[in-house]
């Protein structure tokens, strides 16, 4: 059962229900379904958490996910992941669930619509100055646009916009191309090859979720970066080794 025809690029075009100017397309419906899965699932699991040895297997699963994300984020940011975990973690789990569900018949991933990915990228676009201003103050954040000279400012702004576009188009292109390739293969060799491609698509979907969240972490960390350099300079003058700053430069 294919909900999406081969000549429709995005699930936006599949309108399931229409009332006057309100139209419910497949993207919105499946986004709601994923949101429900995430919310209800997390609520059910976190309803009875235990610190004893008799943890449920669902709690172990959630702990593995949260600990893994926390570790990755704090490795990149070189600081505690607590502030970034809600945002980055939600991005990752939403994109991952959205891509992984693509083997369910009749499902079209919302991430294969440019609207969804653009919305996610705009969230990152807003979150970067938000965290930057939270960390360094409004003036401190705005000052880094004028570094090293005022001439560079248009390029800074251009960079912010173009990487947001790149973030949106990368996720959209990867997921959309996956479903299109499966659709085309169904028309040519319908028996086995689409399944192989779908397995590959699960891997690509997870990698894209990882890349999206890692890139947004890197963008946020780059808004905090100068702050850390100052700190490490202070450490350096007091005789401590400025290892964290060097490591930050490597990872970014």
């Amino acid at each position: 059962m294919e909900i999406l025809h081969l000549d429709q690029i995005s699930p936006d075009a599949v309108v399931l229900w229409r009332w006057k100017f309100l139209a419910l397309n497949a993207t919105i419906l499946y986004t709601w379904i994923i949101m429900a899965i995430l919310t209800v699932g997390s609520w059910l699991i976190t309803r009875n958490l235990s610190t004893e040895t008799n943890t449920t297997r669902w709690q172990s699963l959630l702990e593995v996910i949260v600990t893994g994300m926390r570790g990755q984020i704090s490795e990149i940011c070189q600081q505690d992941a607590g502030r970034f975990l809600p945002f980055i973690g939600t991005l990752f789990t939403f994109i991952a669930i959205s891509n992984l569900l693509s083997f369910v018949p009749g499902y079209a991933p919302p991430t294969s619509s440019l609207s969804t990915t653009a919305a996610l990228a705009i969230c990152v676009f807003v979150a970067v100055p938000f965290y930057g201003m939270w960390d360094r103050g409004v003036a401190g954040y705005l000052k880094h646009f004028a570094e090293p000279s005022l001439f560079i400012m248009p390029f800074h702004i251009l960079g912010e916009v173009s990487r947001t576009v790149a973030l949106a188009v990368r996720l959209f292109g990867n997921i959309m191309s996956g479903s299109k390739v499966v659709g085309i293969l169904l028309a040519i060799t319908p028996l086995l090859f689409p399944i192989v491609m779908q397995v590959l698509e699960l891997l690509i979907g997870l990698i894209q979720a990882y890349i999206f969240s890692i890139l947004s972490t890197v963008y946020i960390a780059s808004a905090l970066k100068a702050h850390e350099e100052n700190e490490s300079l202070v450490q350096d003058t007091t005789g401590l080794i400025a290892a964290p700053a060097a490591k930050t430069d490597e990872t970014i």
Partner: protein
Amino acid sequence: MDIKTLVGMMSIIIAGMTMFVGSISPALGMARAVAQALSSIAQQPDEANTITRTLFIGLAMIESLAIYCFVISMILIFANPFWRYVTTAATGAGH
């Protein structure tokens, strides 16, 4: 050859050529990046985590070039604005 045939033909040819150039060149770049990262991991297995993560970020950056080309060729084939314009102009009816 009327304008409709010309637009359709050129769209398909350019879509193919976009994929041709736009997949070969990022592939070469990604191959270099992966080869370099593999030799770095072979030299310093302790740093494998950092190298792998940086490699993924770099690959994503390079890959987005290929994805741009892919999206452009998809637009040329599935949602070509010129094609829509030409078909409406030829028949006189909406779409």
